[in-house]
């Protein structure tokens, strides 16, 4: 079926924001770096917000958006709610950070933002688990959504750490996280696509190839940065690009193979 | 000055208007862009909706329709649940009536060509100017060259008043009338089946098959031979056949194409196009060989026991042999072992030999007609038919058995397919012979029944003067009638007062035997419907005056016409129609622009000729001469409507004082009970005449005449009912070749069979056509809903053949015959046999405004491939040319023809253009 670009970009961009913040929190919890910085918080917030706005461009009647309050159990409502909560928590975190709150409070709020954000990235994929589209109806789909977002978010984190000239240990861990993120993203994407291999071969082969190459590039960059953090900036740039392409390719492939059970009206979605 | 090119600008303007209209409607809470109510609760507040009971004319079936009219506009159509035939059903064609009515492509006013013929430059003129200018040319040629200068024509599509061109010719006093149907559609069946069975033809689409609509219909087996109820009069025919089939009636469908009815048949015989008569002969042989024929009926009520003169091939009359009177025929009596006269109706003391050869009192020998038939069909084994028809012998046998099991409560309907090839007359004969052999006539459940409109005007209230009254002063003079082009060779055409199209074209091309100058045409698009359309176009470009009467711009108007006169859609006309025991009414729901019922076009032309001194035209307005039965020509539409009311009253309700208002006040209503209607047919030949004898059948012998020696007389004398003098009046009617009393098979002139003389390896595939449920003839190619459903003609190709040619589903194709090439789009399907290609007629109104309007009839029109030329032989009796079963080649094309519309949104410019009720042409012109 037709590629829904605004939905592709929505989940990629907002997913990057959520996982950037989460990666930064992981580094802090691993005591390899401080808690997420102002810049990191702002970037994560902006990515989430821009992503959210991109999702709205998919709608034809934004003026009626408040009608969504009528049906608070739908996938779209849940996604919107979670992106809103994540943004709010990051905003609170930022304010607390600016006001110099204690590490304990910051860690608590930051952890909450990271957890909700990460769940959000999986929820984005879960919304597509529709019985009507058998190839989508697998847990591998939300996993691929969440973990390709993780691949991208961790790569952005690597880039940010290097750009902020953090300690080598921090950049090194960021490289490791990027490696793990992209490996996970690649593995679950592969599981998802292998589950639909016949249609993938028929309809989405170029994007699948792009996904694999881009993810391998990203994970290779992560691996090198892990061992050679001094190259972090360049590797971060390349890893971000690769992971971004991989995340996009996974989603595009998903749309292309999303044939419904029966499609009698052949009514295009755009 | 208004040109069609400018019209295209206004069409774009219309799109904007449409968008504006829907924007307004959206604000008002109702969407009326298509003049359709969506939320009646709101819509009802805008004005009262009137529900008008009327009858459709999107095809020939006249289904009952309820038109919803609000503020003078038709806003909705639906089937009339109280109609006895369609019972509420309405098909896509009928429902698209709104889009035809309000189509921006309507011819709205009389128009006169201002550029070269075919340049599509037009000037709007008044009705008065149009009628007078046309009449001037007619009168000039009439005085100079006589009535032969005129050719009129009509067609089955687009609300025709079938007989009005022939009616006009009877007043005009001569000339030629043609219809692309006629010899190619319905005339062979309508005439020949009636001649043989003395009762009625078997066309389901055209109305005579009434039995199936009766409550508790007894039909056990229905053989649909080239008949597609689901694709022609669908609301009536499709509905009723479905009903019966689901209630257990068995069906056999013989059709090259897997139609919806073929798909549900107990046996589908996917016959090779053009070979039907071969199959019929095999059925006849099987029935005779296996002694399955109806002894009682055939012995007593057919001419098969009669002895036949081996020289003249006519059945002997008793007086020829000194055995009895002229009215009696001759049989061989098994009891007395002697040749005897058979008195009418039947002498029970005689035991006629059905088969054999016997010595006559004059020493000659003679065979019975049945013996001749038996020998005639002897070569047609199931195996031979299977080979010729590309069928399986076992399945042919199974089909015959299913038919025979149902007999006599069974029957065969013959569709248009066989009318469209050189074996047309023989197929009609074969159909009639089979039902006669099985006694499937005038018994409950039989298809052949004695209640339809074989002589009653019924469908055809408006008739040529003198049709049923040979001495009528306005009947076409005999010498002129005999001079009709092609009539001498093909006398069956006389039954419909028609001329032979290829001979008309030849006369225009060569001036021999005389040159027609003026062509007045009233139908949709001859260039799409006539065989070998290029030849037709070339000929008609050379005439001196072409007038086109129609509702919509077509290639006939744009490419050929000098004057274009707007006629009325069925929703704008008043008429009458029987629906079984009910008489229904067509009521004008609105009248747009200056369009007017065609009966007024012809009336106005007659009036203008009368003004110029044309005596017969003057007489046609004189009630003392014209008479009440035919009515005068009409000065106003009201006069015409009153005539229709009078006719229905006098013919059906036994009252002489009806006018339109009386009819309108009670229609539709029953003119007899359904029981009377049903029962009047059963065994009606046994009803006593004034002498107490059974009335018999409507034939010369009063028996059915499966051995139709009347065919010989038809050729010799032109007597269309097969009677006629024993002495041919050759001085008046030059003899044709003797027509054959028995059906005989001719291989299609162009044959796909390797080794046949007609085979050409360059054209290895055989093309057939067939009806689609969304179009009727050339109509509805410009109504968005129907074109959206079927945007381009599909060429159906069996997967095996597709592989052979190297084409895939959806490929655009070139189809080419010896006469031309055109395009279609491949549908690779098991709905047709290998080597058989199906494509329906098509034309593209969207190309009318292109740089080359001729492409509108050339781009995707299989009639560029069909036959209408002397090289390809015609049927002897009717002059039928070949539309189905021509040989073609198929190749892959690069793409669709340039500029054709294929996507739903493409048809937006044809969405309805809201228009007021103006009263039509009657409001601005009256003679």
């Amino acid at each position: 079926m037709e590629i829904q670009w605004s939905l592709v970009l929505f989940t990629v961009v907002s997913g990057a924001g959520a996982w950037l913040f989460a990666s930064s929190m992981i580094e802090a919890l691993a005591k390899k770096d401080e808690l997420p910085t102002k810049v990191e918080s702002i970037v994560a917030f902006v990515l989430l917000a821009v992503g959210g706005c991109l999702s709205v461009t998919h709608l034809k009647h934004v003026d009626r958006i408040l009608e969504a309050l009528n049906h608070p159990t739908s996938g779209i409502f849940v996604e919107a709610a979670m992106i809103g909560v994540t943004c709010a928590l990051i905003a609170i975190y930022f304010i607390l950070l600016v006001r110099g709150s204690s590490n304990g409070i910051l860690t608590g709020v930051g952890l909450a933002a990271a957890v909700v954000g990460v769940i959000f990235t999986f929820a984005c994929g879960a919304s597509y688990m529709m019985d009507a589209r058998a190839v989508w109806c697998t847990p591998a789909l939300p996993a691929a959504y969440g973990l390709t977002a993780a691949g991208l978010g961790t790569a952005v984190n690597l880039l940010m750490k290097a750009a902020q000239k953090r300690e080598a240990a921090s950049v090194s861990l960021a490289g490791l996280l990027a490696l793990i993120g992209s490996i996970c993203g690649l593995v679950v994407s592969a599981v998802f696509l292998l589950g639909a291999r016949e249609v993938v071969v028929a309809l989405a082969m170029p994007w699948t190839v792009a996904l694999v190459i881009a993810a391998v590039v990203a994970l290779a960059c992560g691996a090198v940065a892990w061992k050679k953090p001094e190259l972090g900036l360049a590797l971060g740039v390349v890893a971000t690009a690769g992971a971004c392409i991989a995340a996009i390719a996974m989603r595009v492939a998903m749309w292309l193979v999303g044939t419904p059970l029966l499609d009698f009206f052949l009514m295009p979605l755009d | 000055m208004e040109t069609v090119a400018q019209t295209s600008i206004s069409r774009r303007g219309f799109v904007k208007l449409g968008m504006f209209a829907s924007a307004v409607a959206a604000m008002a809470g109702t969407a009326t862009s298509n003049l359709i109510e969506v939320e009646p609760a709101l819509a009802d507040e805008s004005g009262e909706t009137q529900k008008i009971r009327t009858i459709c004319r999107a095809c020939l079936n006249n289904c009952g329709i309820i038109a919803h009219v609000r503020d003078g506009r038709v806003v909705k159509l639906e089937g009339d649940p109280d109609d006895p035939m369609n019972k509420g059903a309405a098909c896509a064609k009928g429902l698209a009536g709104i889009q035809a009515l309000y189509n921006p492509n309507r011819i709205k006013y009389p128009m006169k060509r201002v550029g070269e013929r075919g340049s599509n430059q037009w000037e709007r003129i008044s009705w008065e100017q149009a009628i007078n200018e046309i009449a001037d040319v007619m009168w000039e040629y009439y005085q100079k060259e006589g009535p032969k200068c005129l050719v009129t024509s009509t067609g089955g599509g687009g609300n025709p008043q079938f007989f009005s061109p022939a009616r006009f010719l009877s007043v005009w006093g001569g000339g030629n009338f043609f219809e692309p149907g006629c010899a190619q559609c319905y005339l062979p069946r309508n005439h020949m089946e009636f001649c043989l069975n003395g009762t009625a033809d078997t066309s389901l689409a055209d109305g005579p098959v009434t039995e199936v609509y009766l409550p508790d219909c007894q039909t056990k087996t229905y053989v649909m031979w080239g008949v597609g109820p689901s694709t022609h009069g669908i609301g009536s025919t499709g509905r009723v056949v479905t009903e019966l089939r689901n209630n257990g009636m068995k069906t056999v469908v013989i059709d090259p194409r897997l139609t919806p009815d073929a798909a549900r048949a107990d046996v589908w015989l996917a016959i090779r196009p053009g070979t039907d008569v071969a199959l019929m002969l095999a059925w006849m042989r099987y029935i005779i060989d296996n002694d399955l024929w109806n002894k009682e009926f055939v012995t007593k009520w057919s001419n098969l026991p009669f002895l036949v003169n081996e020289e003249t091939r006519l059945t002997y009359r008793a007086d020829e042999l000194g055995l009895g009177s002229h009215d009696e025929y001759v049989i061989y009596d098994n009891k007395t072992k002697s040749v005897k006269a058979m008195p009418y109706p039947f002498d029970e003391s005689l035991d006629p030999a059905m088969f054999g050869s016997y010595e006559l009192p004059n020493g000659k020998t003679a065979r019975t007609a049945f013996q001749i038939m038996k020998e005639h069909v002897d070569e047609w084994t199931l195996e031979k038919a299977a080979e010729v028809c590309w069928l399986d012998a076992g399945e042919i046998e199974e089909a015959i058995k299913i038919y025979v099991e149902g007999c006599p409560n069974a029957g065969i309907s013959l569709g248009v397919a066989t009318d469209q090839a050189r074996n047309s007359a023989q197929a009609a004969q074969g159909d009639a012979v089979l039902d006669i052999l099985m006694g499937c006539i005038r018994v409950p459940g039989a298809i052949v029944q004695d209640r339809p409109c074989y002589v009653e005007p019924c469908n055809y209230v408006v008739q040529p003067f003198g049709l049923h009254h040979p001495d009528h002063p306005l009947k076409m003079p005999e010498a002129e009638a005999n001079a009709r082009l092609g009539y001498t060779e093909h006398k069956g055409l006389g039954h419909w007062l028609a001329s032979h199209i290829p001979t008309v074209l030849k006369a225009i091309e060569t001036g021999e035997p005389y040159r027609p100058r003026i062509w007045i045409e009233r139908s949709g698009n001859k260039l799409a419907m006539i065989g070998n359309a290029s030849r037709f176009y070339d000929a008609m470009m050379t005439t001196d005056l072409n007038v086109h009467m129609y509702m919509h711009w077509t290639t006939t108007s744009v490419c050929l016409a000098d004057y274009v006169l707007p006629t009325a859609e069925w929703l704008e006309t008043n008429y009458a129609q029987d629906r079984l025991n009910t008489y229904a009414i067509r009521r004008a729901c609105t009248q747009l622009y200056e369009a007017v019922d065609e009966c007024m076009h012809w009336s106005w032309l007659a009036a203008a000729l009368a003004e110029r001194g044309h005596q017969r035209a003057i007489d046609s307005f004189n009630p003392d001469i014209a008479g009440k039965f035919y009515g005068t020509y009409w000065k106003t539409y009201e006069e015409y409507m009153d005539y229709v009311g009078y006719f229905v009253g006098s013919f059906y309700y036994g009252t002489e004082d009806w006018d339109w208002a009386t009819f309108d006040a009670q229609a539709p209503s029953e003119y007899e009970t359904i029981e009377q209607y049903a029962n009047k047919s059963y065994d009606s030949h046994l009803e006593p005449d004034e002498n107490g004898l059974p009335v018999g059948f409507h034939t010369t012998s009063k028996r059915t005449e499966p051995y139709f020696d009347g065919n010989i007389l038809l050729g010799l004398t032109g007597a269309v009912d097969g009677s006629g003098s024993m002495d041919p009046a050759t001085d008046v009617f030059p003899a044709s070749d003797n027509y054959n009393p028995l059906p005989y098979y001719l291989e299609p002139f162009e044959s796909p069979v390797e080794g046949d003389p007609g085979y050409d390896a360059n054209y290895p595939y055989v093309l057939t056509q067939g009806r689609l449920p969304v179009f009727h003839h050339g109509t509805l190619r410009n109504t968005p809903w129907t074109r959206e459903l079927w945007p381009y003609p599909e060429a159906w190709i069996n997967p095996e053949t597709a592989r052979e040619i190297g084409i895939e589903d959806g490929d655009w194709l070139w189809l080419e015959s010896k006469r031309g090439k055109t395009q279609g789009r491949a549908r690779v399907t098991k709905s047709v046999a290998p080597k058989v290609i199906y494509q329906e007629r098509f034309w593209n109104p969207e190309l009318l405004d292109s740089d080359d309007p001729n492409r509108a009839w050339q781009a995707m029109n299989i009639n560029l491939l069909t036959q209408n030329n002397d090289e390809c032989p015609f049927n002897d009796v009717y002059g039928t040319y070949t539309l189905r079963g021509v040989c073609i080649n198929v190749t892959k094309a690069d793409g669709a023809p340039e500029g054709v519309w294929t996507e739903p949104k493409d048809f937006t410019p044809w969405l309805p253009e809201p228009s007021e009720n103006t009263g039509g042409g009657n409001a601005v012109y009256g003679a």
Partner: protein
Amino acid sequence: MPSMARNCIVVNLDRCIGCWSCEVACKLENDVALGERWNKVVQVEPFGEFPHVSTYWLPTMCQQCEESPCTHVCPTGASYRDEQTGMVLVNKEKCIGCKYCMMACPYGVRSWNEEQQVVEKCTLCNHLTAAGEKPACVKNCCGTARYYGDLDDPNSDASKALAAADADAVHKLPDVGNHPLTSYILSSRFGEWRVDDLTQQTSKYVTTEGSVD
């Protein structure tokens, strides 16, 4: 159990003659734009060995699912089940045009109104049925193949059509937990139900044996 009606259309495929009258009737009644549709008749391409092929025409429209995925995924409740009639309907004024319902529909029988930028679908002509009339596609059907009514009401046309059919002739479109209400009657005399085996090639619907490759 809530006493909600189960209104739907039942189609007797033994009687559907593929004439598309229902499509035009629907467009006329509901002002459905060109290229859009609330109902569509597709032909299951002839399958089997020529000439012993089998084919039937399959009218498709909203199947009025009991577990309707469209209403579940709709973020605004624009796709909803009417309390009174049990009908799955669209309130176009609430529709934000996200098209999730179109993705969730297992049969692709929802339509996109390009002019209004909202999702639409078969309403069972509820403006007519509320007034005691039949839906336009039902009353104009040339094969008398369509029946409307409440399956819980044994006297409805839909219930009677089902009751009159052999149990083994009653079929449904493949059910992925959505429980479509619409039933299709196809008896072995006229055809073989092959929708589970149906794949789509361009605009054609073919079974494995009907494949034209």
